């Protein structure tokens, strides 16, 4: 990959650093034709795409049974060896299974692609939403917007790398303290019946009472966890009072590193305000354990281009369209090296982004920013 010297010009409105969904960047995105626009898609024959989109309960049931079993086994190990250093690896592993694997389960079940059966998607979605400290209603809608307007400034509520980039905060994300605190504050605010202006921008009015309901459920579970810890403490349990937090809520802090490590790679150092996922998303080849934890979301260009394809079919989709995509990074390490070089340059040149070379077999990047879509008939 070679970084491009193309630098996106600063918005004449100076709106490039306004990431709110109701400010000048939002208006600028509408005027530029970037909102709900037609995106680039690689050509895939309908028969092949139909095969790739097919749903099945099998892979997700297998993975979910393993996921649940690991929660139980690792928690039992951590409690059994409590007081000895032998407990540490159990808790570290439990943290990742809870605090990192939850992100991919939240994501795939939110799309409704993990299982064929709808209620299975919904059950796992709610459990994983709780673990990752996301309001299940808010984030369903924010993620829909993320797919409509991926990394469009002023529209996408899930932009992680906001300019100017604060590297200290990004480093802290690996230990989850700031993010977990912010997430908890949002849940408490929602539980109190308040939605922010940004949340109101992407959550339809009819869904808002449900957002408040689920925030109250989440906050109640955290309150119950704190109560359990207090009871253990008052009954002379000493340090054992930490165990409820290690089991519930805590892994979002001490076990989120894998989620953050992979999540930062999804769009980091790449372009804002484009309509071609090859320019703003990253595919990375990673080890099989990380792929299981992350449910193949390392095939991120493929996922954004064709979100109907379930996680277990993403490697097959990659094989079909890879000749139309930039060459994937060969490892997490290589991807970080590329991304961080671009990030450091973005700190000096805010309009810069990593424009990766396309193979000769690929169609050129979509450089135009608007394509008309036909009128719609409403029921």
């Amino acid at each position, binding site marked *: 990959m070679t970084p491009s010297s193309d630098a996106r010009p600063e918005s004449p409105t100076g709106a490039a650093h306004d990431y709110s969904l109701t400010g000048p960047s939002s208006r600028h995105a509408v005027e530029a034709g970037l909102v*709900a626009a037609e995106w680039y898609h690689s050509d895939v024959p309908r028969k092949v795409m139909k095969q790739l989109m097919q749903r099945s309960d099998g892979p997700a049931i297998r993975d979910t049974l393993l996921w649940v079993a690991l929660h139980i086994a690792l928690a039992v190990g951590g409690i059994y060896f409590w007081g000895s250093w032998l407990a540490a690896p159990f808790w570290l592993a439990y943290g990742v299974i809870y605090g990192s694997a939850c992100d991919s389960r939240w994501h795939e079940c939110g799309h409704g*692609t993990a299982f064929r059966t*709808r209620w299975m998607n919904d059950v796992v979605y709610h459990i994983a939403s709780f673990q990752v400290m996301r309001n299940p209603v808010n984030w369903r809608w924010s993620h829909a917007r993320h*797919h*409509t307007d991926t990394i469009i400034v002023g529209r996408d509520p899930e932009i992680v790398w906001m300019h100017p980039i604060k590297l200290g905060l990004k480093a802290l994300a690996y230990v989850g303290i700031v993010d977990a605190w912010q997430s908890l504050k949002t849940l408490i605010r929602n539980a109190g019946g308040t939605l922010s202006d940004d949340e109101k921008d992407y959550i339809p009015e009819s869904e808002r009472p449900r957002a408040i309901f689920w925030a109250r459920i989440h906050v109640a579970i955290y309150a119950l966890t704190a109560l359990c810890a207090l009871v253990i403490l008052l009954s002379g349990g000493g340090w054992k009072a930490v165990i409820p937090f290690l089991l519930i809520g805590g892994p979002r802090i001490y076990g989120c590193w894998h989620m953050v490590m992979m999540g930062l790679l999804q769009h980091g150092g790449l372009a804002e305000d484009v309509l071609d996922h090859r320019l703003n998303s990253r595919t990375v080849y990673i080890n099989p354990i990380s792929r299981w934890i992350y449910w193949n979301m390392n095939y991120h260009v493929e996922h954004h281009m064709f979100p*109907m394809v379930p996680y277990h079919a993403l490697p097959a989709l990659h094989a079909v369209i890879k000749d139309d995509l930039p060459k994937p990074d060969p490892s997490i390490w290589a991807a970080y090296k590329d991304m961080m070089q671009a990030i450091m340059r973005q700190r000096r040149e805010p309009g810069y982004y990593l424009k990766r070379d396309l193979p000769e077999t690929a169609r050129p990047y979509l450089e135009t920013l608007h394509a008309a879509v*036909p009128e719609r*008939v*409403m*029921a």
Partner: protein
Amino acid sequence: MPWIDACAADDIEEEDVLRWDHAGRTYALYHGIDGAFFCTDGLCTHEQVHLADGLVMDYVIECPKHNGQFDYRTGKALRAPVCDNLATYPAKEEDGRVLVLIE
């Protein structure tokens, strides 16, 4: 209103969907698992996305962009992020052709 000849019946595989543009509008034609044919508006009610690029599962069409779902027989919205129902139109097969009644 006359029935409009939209396509050949075997243009659409069973449990699949086909885009059909007519008189400046776009529609989706479905070949159901019972062999019957159905027609809905061609764009999702959530965003302007062609449903014909989506997945048909039994009597459900899933939008290719955000995975919202509709029952294509009735147009009923089944899964977020779709909230509004989809317009449906009568469709039938006659002599190997799919006919649609557009008011």
